[in-house]
């Protein structure tokens, strides 16, 4: 079954100076899946994504994508091999307008694929309406849409999303999650980092729960949703025994 495993993370350890943030984690993402990484603040979720996309060097372990060993591939090359990372905190280019930001997602492409652009706009009609607006003046939710839209322009097979729901109104979170589902239906595998465990578990196929740099719980989201441990710790439910 190894060839439908798109991303394989094995025994990865990451440190900032002498603080170890990720302490030997292993997981995988199969073709066509949405996999969620859940966990509290500081659990190491962002660090894990940064390790995959080459933004932070790993100390130990290996990361493989398809048949490539990408453990030490620099971040700027990752996007060309099919992994696109929408980093934590949106990180859009505020001095450029919406359209220019989106086009920049295709920085490594020979040319801009109009079909792709139409698809991205159809996912986020709001961005099309505002294509000439300066990105820095967009609302938080619109900026989040823009970050995802930009990440799609390089035609990734694998999308890394870091807390797309951060700071958004519940209704907008639903909208964004629906779009993520739609992106996934179009064949893009998704690795989703989230604190909003309830929604993430509804959306994803499988999930891993990180606790201080280690995977504490993992499994299919169906199992996790019914696990009392997860319910108590992450869904705020008291077990009624």
């Amino acid at each position: 079954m190894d060839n439908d495993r798109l991303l394989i993370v094995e025994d990865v350890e990451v440190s900032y100076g002498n603080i170890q943030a990720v302490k030997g984690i292993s997981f995988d993402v199969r073709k066509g899946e949405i996999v969620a990484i859940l966990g509290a603040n500081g659990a190491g979720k962002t660090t894990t994504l940064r390790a995959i996309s080459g933004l932070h060097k790993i100390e130990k372990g290996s990361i493989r994508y398809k048949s490539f060993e990408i453990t030490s591939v620099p971040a700027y090359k990752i996007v060309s091999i099919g992994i696109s990372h929408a980093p934590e905190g949106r990180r859009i280019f505020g001095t450029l307008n919406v359209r220019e930001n989106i086009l920049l997602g295709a920085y490594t492409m020979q040319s801009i694929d109009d079909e792709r652009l139409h698809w991205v706009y159809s996912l986020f009609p709001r961005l099309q309406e505002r294509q000439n607006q300066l990105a820095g003046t967009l609302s938080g939710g619109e900026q989040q849409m823009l970050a995802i839209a930009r990440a799609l322009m390089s035609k990734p097979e694998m999308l890394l999303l870091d807390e797309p729901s951060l700071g958004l109104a519940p209704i907008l979170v639903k909208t964004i999650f629906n779009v993520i589902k739609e992106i996934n239906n179009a064949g893009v595998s998704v690795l989703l980092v989230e604190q909003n465990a309830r929604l993430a578990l509804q959306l994803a196929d499988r999930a891993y729960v990180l606790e201080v740099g280690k995977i504490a719980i993992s499994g299919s989201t169906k199992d996790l949703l019914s696990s009392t441990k997860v319910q108590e710790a992450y869904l705020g439910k008291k077990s009624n025994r």
Partner: protein
Amino acid sequence: MKKRTVTYALLILSVLFPLFSNSSWITIGTTFVIYSIVSLSQDIVLGRAGMFDMGHAIYFGMGAYTTAILNSTYGVPVLLTIPFAVVIPVIFAVLLAAPIVHLKGDYLLVATLGFNIVFEQALKNNLFGITGGPNGIFGVGVPSIFGIEFSSQASIYYFSLFFLFLTLMIMNNLEASKTGRALHFINEDSLASETIGINTRFYKIFAFAISAALSGLAGVAFAVQYSTVSPEAFNFIQSVLFFTIVIVGGQSSIPGVLIGTFLMFVVPEIFREFATARYFVFGIAMILTMILRPKGIWPVKFGRIPKYIRH
């Protein structure tokens, strides 16, 4: 376009300037031209790429010392020293920048400042016995072609102006090029740039390299103009000046940087009796600008810049 007309008028004015000026004004003009090149090159690193380089006088000084040493000590004609005065600063810029470009703002600033202090000490202590110690090197000649010497002040002015035009051309190309765009994106958000596939490390080092090349050229002109080089002309105080000129004038803004240089190097000459108070005047200008116009005297209009984004 109106802006274009003004630009050409200024260029023509700069060429005709020596025809209606006396020699002391041409000297001031030459100083302005030389320091403009350094400030513009500082802007590539600081304004465009957004790296807090507080050691830019190093590359200016390396260019000047290279020409001075080769010409005055070894008798190499000034024009033949130019390639060395460009290449040596570039090599050092790459070597110095490579280990530090990943540093964030203030850390980079302190590191580059440190380099500048080391550089000044090396010059003062007569490194390899070729820098002439605290007094520097005297007796740099003037450029000559086919036995014709550029010895008049006006010809040195034109010699320097040629380098300034070259600098302006390069900066103009940079603005419309892939590199210029990449620098702008990196400046705005280095991490986001990396995730869309920009090799930020390469472009940051490249910015240092091209900027060192231009500063090296300015150094050649400096050595010719003053026919002497000494450590004080390239100490970290000078770097602080170039740094503030860019901030006060306007980052990424060619007119802004030129105005900043004008304020620092020409205005004090106009008010001759206050010339010793130049730091005082510029200090006040720095404070007022930052309070009243925090983006610089002539800020660049972002949002209009990215017209060239369409590949």
